[in-house]
């Protein structure tokens, strides 16, 4: 009797294991660690990916981490996936850490980052020539502050973001002064402040972000970016200087630790297949930051509306 019971137990557990294997066609049960940063868009991207991977049977852990500092963790394999690495701000870090192959670029998220000079629409009354960049010099004074007067004041991104705005002002002979904000918080704090007072402001805004949906305004139209514009002085309006055009629009990349592919090849494929549209993301972000929904609710909503799409990622 006892023997039979034992055998029965073994058979049961074998069936259970087989069954489990069928449901979860998964490599390792260790948790895959995805990093969370401090802006909503990234939280949404990461949570969608996490939910999809959970559906595929993977074990997921979400870990708050700094945008750049996380690379140290990705490199050593303490962290595994970072869902948003912007071409525009993360290029140096990507180059630095993918060089020895311990961090890999998993391809684009399908979203494109836009970064450009931006102004609120109430400024159009004072400067009707906008968004054409040629109007910038005519209304420089309308954008001046006591410190920059008579030049216009342009609030650029932190120096670490690059962007060549100082060079751009020079090349396009703009009567503007570039002031660098130290961080993105400071940048939007100034926008909020100016918007409340309907005061003049011209600053660096990027999308996808909640700011373009919260405040009404436009990007300035510069001569469109080409590679030659940044490398060849003779290109463009100013024959003697490079950077006489707008900023490049770069993809948002996904990066991962190289161990992801070895340990969870299926998850790697799913992450590689992940794509979202910039507009779609803009709407999701607005739904969280402007309508006050939680990230979880928005993600759950997206999951139930897009079953086919994410279903194809984990096939």
């Amino acid at each position, binding site marked *: 009797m006892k023997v039979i019971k034992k055998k029965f137990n073994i058979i049961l557990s074998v069936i259970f294991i087989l069954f489990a294997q069928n449901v979860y066609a998964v490599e390792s*049960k*260790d*948790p*895959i660690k995805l990093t969370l940063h*401090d*802006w*909503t868009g990234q939280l949404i991207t990461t949570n969608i990916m996490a939910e999809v991977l*959970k559906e595929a049977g993977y*074990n*997921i*852990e979400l*870990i*708050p*981490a*700094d945008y*750049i*500092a*996380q*690379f*140290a*963790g990705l*490199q*050593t394999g*303490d*962290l595994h996936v970072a869902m948003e690495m912007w071409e525009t701000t993360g290029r*140096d*870090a990507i180059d*630095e*850490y993918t060089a020895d192959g311990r961090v890999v670029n998993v391809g684009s998220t399908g979203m494109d980052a836009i970064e450009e000079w931006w102004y609120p629409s109430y400024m159009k009354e004072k400067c009707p020539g906008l968004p054409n960049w040629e109007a910038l010099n005519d209304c420089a004074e309308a954008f001046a*502050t*006591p*410190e920059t007067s008579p030049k216009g004041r342009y*609030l650029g991104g*932190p*120096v*670490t973001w690059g962007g060549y705005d100082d060079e751009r002002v020079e090349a396009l002979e703009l009567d503007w002064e570039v*002031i*660098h*904000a*130290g*961080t*993105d*918080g*400071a*940048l*939007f*704090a*100034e926008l*909020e*402040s100016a918007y*409340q*007072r309907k*005061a003049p402001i011209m600053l660096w805004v990027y999308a996808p972000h*909640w700011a373009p949906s919260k405040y009404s305004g436009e990007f300035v139209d510069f001569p469109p970016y080409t590679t030659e514009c940044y490398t060849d002085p003779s290109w463009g309006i100013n024959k003697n200087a490079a950077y006489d055009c707008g900023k490049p629009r770069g993809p948002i990349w996904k990066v991962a630790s190289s161990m992801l592919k070895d340990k969870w090849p299926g998850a790697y494929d799913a992450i590689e297949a992940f794509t979202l549209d910039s507009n779609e993301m803009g709407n999701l972000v607005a739904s969280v*930051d402007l309508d006050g929904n939680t990230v979880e609710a928005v993600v759950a909503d997206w999951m139930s509306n897009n079953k086919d799409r994410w279903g194809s990622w984990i096939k």
Partner: protein
Amino acid sequence: MKNNNIFNKITFISLLLLTFVFYWYGKEIANYFDSKWILKYPKHHAFPFAIYTTTFVKWLINEASFGLFTFRDVTRSFAWIIEQPYNLVLAIISKGILKGQGQDATLILSPLSWVSIIGIFFTLALYTKDKFLIILVVFAIIYLAVFDQWQSSMITLSSIIIAVPIGVLLGILFGVLCYKSQLIEKIITPILDLMQTVPVFAYLVPILVMFGFGPVSALIATIIYAMPPMVRTTILALNNIDPQIKESGIMSGCTDRQLMWKVLIPVSKPTLLIGVNQVIMLSLNMVIIASMIGAGGLGYDVLASLRRLDIGGGIESGIAIVVLAIALDRLSQSFANLPTLTKKTRVSFYTKYKKIIFLLLYIIGVYLLGSFFSFFKFFPENLMINTSAFWEELVKYININYFDNLENFKITLLTYFMLPIKKFFLGIPWPWFIIIITLIGWYFGKLKLAALCFVLSVFIVTTGLWQKAMITLYLCGSSVIIASLIGIPLGIWAGLNKKADKILTAFIDTLQTLPSFVYLIPVVMLFRVGDFTAMIAVILYALAPAVRYTAHGVKNINNQIIEAALICGCSPRQLLFKIKLPLAIPEILLGINQTIMLALSMLVITALVGTRDLGQEVYIGLTKADIGRGLIAGLCVAFIAIIADRIIKAGSNKLKNKYGIK
């Protein structure tokens, strides 16, 4: 003697005049001799410290090996040891005991609920028998629940519960070692200086690689930053012990070890507790930075709400940090002041542990009730308060109605105060600046200090960061001047008036533990990005020691001197200006010294509002993941701090000798 004095004055004045000549005519002189290098250190002569440092650190953390195991294995196992107690505490008060990992994990035992945590803090406070403290602590914990900060606070609290004891123990240990051996003290003191003054951002990346990404790295960064005051106070306490006590210990036949742990350490307990207090405060200061490297908790909430420009959310989380700091600090202080029971009376087990037994029963009761009523498990959501809208409206109101006034105020201060200082520092040719610094070192501390000042400032020049170092000096200098102008009068007031003292202490504790990120956004909204905003942030943070040390100095003047003055017929005003203040000057100087240290440690934060100083260089190093660049800029900050510290301390000692105070 008198001749010497006059000679000193003449040298001083002529040096000052020369400095101004160089400042006004620096450019002309440089042009005349066709030597621009006087004004700007040539770039190609800058020594590539940064590149060498990067290579070395990379080799250390990626390749260095001791045969059987690598350097990283050592650091990683160290991390593992710290991680175990942390995980335990985290499980008890925040996560619950889980089985499995990730979303597969199942809850075996739920964590202590808010009702239980209140019970624990209440019991702890009961031991101190201080009614005011009991109320304070309970209200503090309730704040966390009511303002929906519970989850994050408990994560932060767990890291504090682990970091503070480790910091205190290591601090006492190193302190004792330094006390016993002069050699060790000589080695450790400069290391302590660096630990306190190199901005944390500078070594964040190497720490992450060594100890792994997550709470442990954050804990280690916290301990590095918070431990030095503990070492210092331990050395101070042991050195100040009455030699008679030590002798009586030796006479009663203590072994070396007994003498240390049974006599000297217990005797110096009151001083040691000041160190503990500092460790708690500094650990809570680190909460924000720790959250950037995976600690989560309240710091992460503050950062995330700033990213959304949710001023109120940031303030609520920030105040939660303050509330935790004040509750823990006051608790630890009253425990310090408890009379130690030495009588060995026989009491029954029950009377001895009555409170703990009650607490355990209470926790079990709450736990059981929790399975029936969710009130005992989670604080009901409909009772929570959210003040976001209020703060937003407040800032909006000020912004719309007073922006122009604030702008005028700002521009006046900028043109007549800050810009002249900036021009002054940037205008002096660097060789002359080094000579002046060395001479100042000579005046206060003879050859040794002069050599130190010379070597450290030459290092800064050769890194090619001189320009940024001067902007740093200008920002710190103007902030310290204003902070002293505000802080010293407040300190005097607190020293003379007990009620004012109480209010000011609470105010200062708040300023020091409220993360600067919280007020950065409103300040930017009202004053725009730039040096002025940075200065306000620095002043708010660095004000505390100026008040504290001044108050301490004014309060602790020898009573006999005051009585003598009163007998001589001093009016209160004379007493203050002729007796108390001059005698408090050495202490006030130390306060200014600490203000400078705090101002320098705020540098990295000011980089976030767009300054172009060394702090920015450190920040660039971090965001570009350039280890060497960050570390070298960090060292420059540290060296400025060390020069300022040594000169002021030497000055303070000179004054103390003059007044015959010890």
